[in-house]
């Protein structure tokens, strides 16, 4: 049982958002990678979250049960990448075309800002929960 209530839920959310930011970083870093371990161009990764039951009060599915969040799966975005004509490229095919990764920089930026803001929102939950605990301790003064 934690002294600061609900902090483990928020910690799970922080962890999930951090993973999402890591994946965005990986996508941006590999935006020009035309050859991965499998020899194919890099495919953009997407993160999906799922709820995680922390403490269960009453029956399953009860609204009173505490649900945190965790990264459910990291999947490949299978939309085809852009084909660029560049015969001098080492990974160009016989027609001189290179398949670039399907990373869209604008999407990644939006994803990054969303993850960053969600992280901040959870941080302010932590801050407020701590302030509430400290205010409760001031009852004794």
């Amino acid at each position: 049982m934690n002294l600061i209530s609900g902090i483990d839920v928020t910690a799970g959310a922080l962890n999930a958002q951090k993973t999402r930011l890591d994946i965005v970083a990986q996508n941006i870093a590999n935006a020009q990678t035309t050859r991965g371990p499998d020899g194919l161009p890099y495919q953009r990764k997407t993160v999906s979250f799922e709820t995680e039951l922390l403490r269960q009060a009453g029956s399953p599915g009860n609204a009173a049960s505490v649900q945190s969040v965790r990264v459910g799966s990291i999947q490949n975005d299978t939309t085809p990448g852009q084909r660029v004509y560049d015969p001098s490229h080492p990974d160009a095919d016989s027609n001189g075309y290179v398949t670039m990764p399907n990373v869209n920089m604008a999407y990644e930026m939006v994803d990054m800002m969303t993850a960053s803001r969600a992280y901040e929102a959870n941080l302010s939950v932590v801050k407020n929960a701590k302030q509430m605990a400290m205010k409760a301790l001031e009852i004794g003064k």
Partner: protein
Amino acid sequence: MSSIGSIGSLQNPYLSGLIPSTRTDAPASIGNLSGVSAPQTGGVGSSFGNVIDGLVSSVDAKQTEASNLTRDVLLGKNDQLHQSMIAMQEASTAFGLMLQVRNKVVDSYQELMRMPA
């Protein structure tokens, strides 16, 4: 017949015949108040020292956990920066709670010491 104060000694022997010697408004017996019982003399587990000891050791456990997490982050074994910070805040809050309990206990002690005055 009150034995405290000076009223008992001022009893006029002539008046004692007029005033009934048993007071009807006196409490019947103080020893048998309902709902009030003598404090249980608990075993070793519930002594005051053990309570404080348990409090201190649980605060210490939180601080050890926080310092372990922080060390892991600093050593690069773990990238859960927020977990480390949250553990530190938990430890700090637990320490604050322990301080408040200590203040309350010391206040009660000092209040008891002021009792004769």
